[in-house]
Every structure is written in C-alpha cells, then in structure tokens.
C-alpha cells in the first residue's frame, strides 16, 4: 500500500518536473539552432549545433549593454534597499513606537501596488528631475517594492534572534552602531543574504517600469528583448539565447538560498 502510494507520488513529481522543465528546455534547444533550422525543420534537439547566437549577444553592444545596464541598476537597487531596510527592520523587531504598525502596513501596500498605477507619475517625476534614461531612475523606482520587501524579510529573521543578546551587549558597553555591525549583523547573515537575493530577483524580473523609464543609455536586457520581438522578421535564435542568459544568474544564486526561499516569498513570515 505505502509502496504503491510512494510510486504514485514519484510519478506525479516526475510529471510536474517535466511540465516545469520542458518549456525551458525548448528555449535552450532553440538557442543552439540557427534561424533557418528553427523555421525549416522541427527537431527535439539541435541538428546543427551552433554557438553563433551567444557569440552575437556577447559581441553586439546593443545586446550585451542590456545585461550590463540591468546589472548596474539591479546592483544599485539591492545595495540601497538592504542598507536602508536593516536599521528599520531592527526598529520594527525590537521596539514599539508611535505609528509603528501603520508604517509597517503602509510598507506592505507598496509591495502590493501594481506598478502600472505609478507608471505615469514616475515618468513625469523622473523627467522633471532630469533622471530619465539613467540607471538611478530605474533603481529608485524599484525601491518602491524592494525596500518594503527587504524590511519584511529582515524583520522576520531578526525576530528570531533573542533580545537578550542585545541587552547583554549594551551592558557590556557596546554602542548601538558597534553592536549592530560586530554582533548583530553576523547573527542575521542568512537573512541579509535572502533579502539581497529577493531584491536582486524582483528588480531583475521587472519589466514595466524599467522599460518606461529608459530609452537608450540605461536600456535593460528585458526591454531589449521585447523590442526585438516586435521588430519585423523575428530573430528567434538570438531571442532564445538572450532568454537563456537572463535565467543563468537566478539559477546560480538559487542554490545558496534554497532553504530560505519559502521564507523570502512569505516575506519572513514562515
């Protein structure tokens, strides 16, 4: 009975994994084909294996600058988000103060607001400030949902650290900044890593704001891709290769946070 049950579960799991991986495999498969092969024949694996599409991306500035632009604004965003969120999360996890719950709730609403709502005002705001088409503009716009997320995740991790540790440190004569950097930060290393990972990820996957706030100089890879889609004469092979390359960073980092990923998605509440 249990044997059979186990069997059924394995089959279900295998079926799901197949469902999950097939579309990705198909893109990887396509990225190693030429456009002629994609359009003329139908095969489950590349008949004329080629690296040409990847070579195109790594040698054409209009492609690879997209990756660099994305990495720059995602990096700026992650650094700002985590560094402003750290003290705030500490305050929420350790103290009560006027309006604390309201602010905590208000932060959550920003994570949940559709970016489409803020699209026009952002456009106007950054045009007025002369920041259009800069990495800073996109990084700032993404703070909208990443700062709240980082605060929530970090607060979840910090609440798991007993308050006695803080009190002992203060009695031992540590000042707040010294205690925070030397004692507290090492204790919540995992939390900082997870928060940074989620900021990185949500900034990396976002398209709407990134596309609207940039045109040439800071154009992210996700926007480069959509514009290729709309151009006449689809370059499927290069598009597939570009898609594969956008998955790589996530696929690498995910291994390091695999045990915390549920906690991150539940915003520190699991």
């Amino acid at each position, binding site marked *: 009975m249990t044997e059979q049950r186990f069997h059924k579960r394995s089959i279900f799991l295998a079926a799901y*994994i197949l469902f999950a991986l097939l579309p990705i495999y198909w893109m990887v498969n396509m990225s190693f084909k030429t456009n002629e092969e994609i359009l003329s024949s139908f095969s489950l694996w590349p008949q004329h294996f080629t690296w040409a599409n990847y070579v195109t991306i790594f040698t054409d500035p209009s492609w690879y600058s997209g990756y660099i632009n994305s990495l720059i604004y995602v990096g700026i965003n992650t650094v700002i988000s985590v560094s402003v969120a750290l003290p705030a999360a500490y305050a929420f996890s350790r103290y009560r103060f006027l309006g604390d719950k309201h602010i905590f709730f208000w932060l959550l609403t920003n994570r*949940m607001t559709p970016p489409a709502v803020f699209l026009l*005002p952002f456009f106007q705001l950054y045009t007025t400030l002369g920041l259009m088409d800069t990495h800073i503009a996109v990084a700032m716009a993404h703070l909208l949902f990443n700062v709240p997320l980082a605060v929530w995740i970090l607060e979840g991790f910090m609440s798991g650290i007993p308050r006695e540790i803080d009190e002992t440190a203060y009695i031992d004569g540590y000042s707040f900044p010294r205690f925070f950097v030397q004692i507290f930060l090492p204790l919540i290393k995992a939390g900082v890593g997870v928060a940074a990972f989620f900021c990185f990820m949500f900034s990396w996957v976002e398209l709407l704001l990134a596309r609207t706030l940039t045109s040439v100089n800071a154009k992210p890879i996700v926007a480069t891709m959509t514009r290729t889609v709309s151009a006449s004469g689809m370059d499927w092979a290069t*598009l597939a290769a570009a898609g594969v390359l956008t998955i790589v960073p996530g696929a690498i980092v*995910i291994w390091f946070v695999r045990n915390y990923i549920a906690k991150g998605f539940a915003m520190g509440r699991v």
Partner: protein
Amino acid sequence: MSTIQKPVNQKAWWLVLPVLLCVAFSAILPLMTVVNYSVQDIISPERRVFVGTEWFASVMRDTELHGALWRQLQFSLAVLAVEIPLGIALALSMPAQGWKASAVLVVVALSLLIPWNVVGTIWQIYGRADIGLLGHTLQALGFDYSYTGDPLHAWITVLVMDVWHWTPLVALLAYAGLRSIPDAYYQAARIDGASKLAVFRYIQLPKMRDVLMIAVLLRFMDSFMIYTEPFVLTGGGPGTATTFLSQYLTQKAVGQFDLGPAAAFSLIYFLIILLLCFVLYNWMQSLGAATKEPTHD
C-alpha cells in the same frame, strides 16, 4: 511583528527614517500626482481644468473597464483554483530530506526567477504552432491550437503559463509548512491507525493552513496585477480576451495618454489592492503572534 514584551522607544523612529524617505519619494510623491491628475482635465501642460469627480464617474461607467475587471476576476479565481491544489499536491510529493530534496527544490523554484517577459517569450516559442513544441504537438494530435487566433486558446495558454510560473510559490510555502510538523505527530497517527487521508485532513492541512493563506492572498494580489507575461505572449489579444486590468490601464495611460481617466482608474485599482492588502496584513500579524507565543511561555 509581534508586540509582546517590546519596550516603547520613540527614538526607533530615527532608524525607520531612511526607509520612509526612500519610499515616500517613490510612493507618496507619485501617488499625489495621480490624485492631482484624477480631478483635472489636462489639455496641455499649461492648460488644466478642474473637473471634480467627472473622471471617476466616467471610469465607473466605462464598459471596457468592466470587461477588463470581470476578466481579471475570472482569471484570478481560476489561478487560485488550479494553483493552490496543485501546489499542495506538489509539496506533498516532494522528498523531505537529502540531496534529492535540495535538487527538487531548486528545479521547482527555477521558474520563479525567470524575468517575467522571458516567461512570456518562453511560452511564445513553446506554444507557436510552427516552431513550438507544445503548439506543434497539439497540431500534430489534431487540435487546431492557436493562442494568437482563438480567444479561448489564448486565455487558457495565459492561465497555463501562470500555473507554470507561480505554482512553485504555493508549493514552496506549503512545503515549508509541512516541514514544521514534528515527527511525533506522524507517529501518534500511525499508532492510532489513521489513514493517509486522515493524516492529511487532521495533521498536514491544519499545519499548512497559515502559510496557505499567505499563498492564497499573495497569488490573488499578484495575479491581480499581472501585466508582463500576457503583454509579451498575446499583447492582450486576440481582441480583448487577455486584456487584464494592468494591461488596460497601461494602454490608457501610455498608449492613449488619457491622463485624467487613467489616474482615476489607478486610484480605484489602488483602493481594491489596499483592501486586499489589509486582509493579508491582519492575517500575517495574527500568524506572527501565533507562532511566537509558545517561545514566550
């Protein structure tokens, strides 16, 4: 953020201040701009007329908007109906420990980390009848499948794409809930001779209840603002079959540059989300209090 045994300290405000400044700049300023637009008719940057609630009234009467809202609700409910049971089933069938558990976890989570427009692209090249594995296979099996031509096919494809993209989130949360069940519970159930179904109903489901509630609300809200994936895959079409709220709003705001109505619509949209968010917040707070209580006793 449980409030048990926390000292009051107003100086904590200084720690929160940087966050407030950052978020205020990217949330409050733009929101005030939206409010400002929603009550004016902007003919040109220099000529503006105050119109009061006119835009709100016209948005409320907008049949296209009603259509988009209705499609959105149907879609979000369909998303929940498929993803929640599937996610639970997936969590139950994932291995509990060892390298297999880690490997499965990573494979399952993979789709969550793909940029949203790439998700659209993946399904585009997967679903097309001429070059896609799915489209080609369905055609070969005799289905006249075309996600660009048939509204129903488009809708189902967007749904399947969302299931593919986000079921792992539900599964991960349910999995985290399952792992928090002590072995003693299962042993007791075995001694009592409980069936698998009873174990699920009386041990696993109650333990997963809280994380599942988070999953339901997150999925509902996030599917409520879905934009990028259908934008890439179907562009909202054919016709308006897959034009959901964000898509419609973006068309109005950027495409037609109807600032006033778009702003009024934004505010209504924002209020709906705010309401949902309030429910989620209270749920998460009570969850935080419930899980932290035992450690204090």
